[in-house]
């Protein structure tokens, strides 16, 4: 099961992972080998077999919707890689430098 360098680049983009060119080549080989191994699943007859997402019989754990204390804002913001006052600071999202956001949409 071969996987092309272009496919690797496409998947890396979906995964939001930058790869250098050497890594693209290497991953094409490694992922190809793993997918080739995994391809044996196609030999198993599974028509009409329901998928298992999860082994427990219980569905939906519900509880009363009661307000309780959350984590303190300051404790959370202390771990921010970059912040400004009570906010996380990130590169510009809309407009220049932003990618595909709002493109062709009315906002």
């Amino acid at each position, binding site marked *: 099961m071969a996987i092309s360098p272009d496919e690797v680049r496409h*998947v890396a983009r979906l995964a*939001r992972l930058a790869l250098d060119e050497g890594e693209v080549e290497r991953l094409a080989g490694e992922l190809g080998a*793993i997918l080739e*191994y995994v391809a044996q*699943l196609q030999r198993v007859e599974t028509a009409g077999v329901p998928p298992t997402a999860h082994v427990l019989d219980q569905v939906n754990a519900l509880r009363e919707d009661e307000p309780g204390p959350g*984590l303190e804002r300051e404790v959370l913001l202390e771990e921010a890689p970059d912040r400004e006052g009570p906010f996380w600071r*990130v590169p510009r999202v809309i407009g220049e430098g932003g990618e595909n956001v709002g493109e062709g949409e009315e906002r």
Partner: protein
Amino acid sequence: MAWRPVHELAASGASRREIAELFVERAARLDGRVHAFLTQTPERALEAAERADRAGGGRPSPWAGLPVALKDNLVTRGLRTTCASRMLADWVPPYTATAVERLEAAGLGCLGKTNLDEFAMGSSTEHSAFGPTRNPVDLERVPGGSSGGSAAAVAAAMAPWALGSDTGGSIRQPAAYCGVVGLKPSYGRVSRYGLVAFASSLDQIGPITRDVRDAAILLGLIAGHDPRDATSAERPVPDYLERLEEGVRGLRVGLPREYFGEGVAPEVREAVLGAARALEREGARVEETELPSTRYALAAYYVVAPAEASANLARYDGVRYGFRAAGATSYADLYDRTRQKGFGAEVRRRIMLGTYALSAGYYDQYYLKAQQVRTLIRREFGEAFRRFDLLLTPTAPTAAFRLGEVSDPLTMYMNDICTIPANLAGLPAISLPCGSAGGLPVGAQLMAAPFEEALLLRAARALEAALSLQPWRPAAELEEVAP
């Protein structure tokens, strides 16, 4: 003294301070050679010990003041939790995992946070951003993984017991490689709240200990329903010690052929068959059986686990906590570069594999198919447990390999071929020492039906008693490290 199991230490008459000091001292002196710990917290261990000594009869549990090591993917408020990743190298979590909270409530003190394969992805603890852990029995060999730090800490008596996590064998395989006991509970038995998520439908926290009784004790402390984990089971926790010594007379034990075949080292097979004969002598009825879907378990796992991982690890984006790559020119560039630099090669490989399996056009072929095969594996176990109380297999196909010996990812994944089925089916499974191969520890794995931990522990205890092996000791060169 450091070699005694916790239940004996607790009954020894030594003060909790003396016991804690023993392990604090050994960890400080020996870990330079083993690298089981990413963070040592002697002050926490000693403080808990002193509190227990002061409390005397008013202790919160019989185990109060005893130290414990925690795998560094269990979040601890105010104490750095790294997952052995550059992504979380300096992260100080704002909350504590439920399993750890329960140990704290019982009065146990944290000795430190142990090394692992990054985000628990690996079978050797070589994939740690902070360098590998070594196997105390043979320092040239890996301790297994991903809970290699926890297993090595117990094997070197730098900790009397530890918590690990197991997604495809990450408690049992390192326990086998290091010659100690490792238990993966049934899915849902222990709350996953505060266990940094790898593959959410497979992950479980469990004990790594010196003997089976300690595993029963530590499981009893951490098990039970937790409203903060919607997948934790609403079932009462039995007293795992109550019937521990009742033996295996009349129990039916299956030996699934598929776990003894090609790829399993002859000495490993012999050691596990020796364990089967020991169970037979104790009155169990041992019989060969078949679990044909097992041969597809590894393939199904390497779709399901990376798929879930790729979703879980999407949260590391360099925005709210953890590592952020410098110099990003846009938000997309920030994500891409943070994730490139923050994750190691194995984690990136699994994110890519999982993203591929979930992507448009491949979902049915890979992810859906793997989940259907998972159903077949579960059904087959369901049928097996109508005929057998327990299944006995090797824990890993070989003994510990040398550092750097396995470089191909797929060859590395083969290490988990015997342990993965229990994760896919949500079964409890335990590994305990059963002999040696080339002078290295071999583990036997027992599996039971979901939530049959009491039965599993009872059988493991009977096997441990019947074999009555000398405990594995660290390499002489480790013990020679001067005080």
